[in-house]
């Protein structure tokens, strides 16, 4: 039935959608003029960084979404969105190394050793690379239960990403705080609220069942 595998059909569409920020930026850049603003390198850095963070948060939203809907299809998009987060992260790194720092390695080394926001950003990118590399079925098989443990690093990556954003802002923290709040919600949804509720509901149920039984037996 077509309904059964509509996710397989939707995947190429999602893929193209994820490429849209890059396509628009390339069109603006190659079109020349003022489309990328007075400071195009800053615009490219900022945009690629934002899309890394957005893709990460979207990836983290899929598991709670799947649970809320009671359907597995969001999980099937998770790897692709995660890899897009990595993709935009690599573009961010490339813009920084090549356009911003002009591959001036002494300056880059200084950044990487002295500037906390760059250090946390870099750690996040390195971790992301490991997850991207091990995102295949082959690695999933090879690492077995450790694969799941390893890929929990995505939570740390997201926290480091938000921290990177918070630490680079001069005075107006509103924008990074919005990302921090969304991440906070996504992490909070993973706390075992449901299990507690179910557990307490069960204990109430079993207690009342015991009470009913005892009531009926006494009759």
């Amino acid at each position, binding site marked *: 039935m077509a309904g059964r595998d509509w996710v397989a059909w939707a995947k190429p569409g999602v893929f193209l959608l994820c490429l849209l920020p890059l396509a628009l930026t390339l069109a603006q*850049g190659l079109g020349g003029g*003022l489309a*990328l*603003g*007075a*400071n*195009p*390198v*800053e615009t*490219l850095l900022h945009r690629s960084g934002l899309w890394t963070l957005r893709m990460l948060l979207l990836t983290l939203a899929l598991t709670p979404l799947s649970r809320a809907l009671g359907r597995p299809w969001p999980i099937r998009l998770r790897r692709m969105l995660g890899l897009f987060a990595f993709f935009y992260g690599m573009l961010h790194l490339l813009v920084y190394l090549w*356009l911003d*720092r*002009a591959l*001036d390695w002494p*300056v880059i080394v*200084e*950044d990487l050793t*002295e*500037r*906390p*926001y760059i250090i946390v950003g870099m750690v996040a990118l390195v971790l992301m690379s490991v997850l991207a590399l091990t995102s295949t079925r082959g690695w999933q098989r090879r690492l077995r239960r450790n694969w799941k443990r390893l890929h929990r690093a995505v939570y740390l990556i997201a926290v480091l990403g938000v921290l990177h954003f918070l*630490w*680079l802002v*001069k*005075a*107006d923290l*509103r924008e990074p705080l919005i990302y921090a709040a969304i991440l906070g919600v996504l992490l909070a949804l993973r706390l075992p609220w449901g299990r507690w509720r179910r557990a307490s509901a069960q204990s109430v149920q079993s207690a009342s069942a015991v009470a009913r039984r005892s009531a009926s037996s006494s009759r």
Partner: protein
Amino acid sequence: GAVAATYPRPGEDEPLTPREFVTGYNNFYEFGTDKEDPAAHAHRLRTRPWSVVVDGECARPGEIGIEDILAGFDQQERIYRLRCVEAWAMVIPWVGFPLGELLARFEPTSRARYVAFETLLDPEQMPGQRRRVLDWPYREGLRIDEAMHPLTLLATGLYGETLPNQNGAPLRLVVPWKYGFKSIKSIVRIRFTAEQPPATWNRMQPDEYGFYANVNPAVDHPRWSQKSHRMIGGGWLAKRRETLPFNGYAEEVAGLYAGMDLRRFY
């Protein structure tokens, strides 16, 4: 013009920054924290009538209207490089006159060791002030010898025209050897003081923004290097340029700081 040629100006390989960037890429948090916000919102600012109160340690405190300022001081063109603390720079043809000429009219006394400046406070006209991103009104200060230095300009225009609102109309400071945030915009008050006056960014993050804020490649901002900067208008592939001590104006101003430890007084 002839006057500009007698003052140090950026090198021949540093063309003027296109006007649309000078007026479209601004840090003026009174109108919002994005670089494009000032151009979008500064039309709310009413620059007439406008007057500046000058008081404190001086013999003739008073108030002077913008019309008197424009008529009473010889307006000249000065081409300066503006170096932002965020490591970008522009080359701007300002119109204005030396601040010292205005200050002299109010006859500062020997007790006047500093000059304090204040921007307009009016959230109606400056919507960015509705949020406490900074401790409004914006305040800045100079030592009196810095204020009286012939390079220190009160700007009333740029590119031969009246100063656009987003650039600090109708009257702003330009101190070319200091980071841009020292050059306070839309000034309504000037005060001679005996003590070092408070400065907005310095108060907010003293380890990142010093009172002196002289452009200095040897003293990094805690979060980024100040050794180089990017010229606005250079496009995607513009190379960074080496930042010079005092933004290239060392010959004129280094003497003001003789004997001072510029790592401590950054």
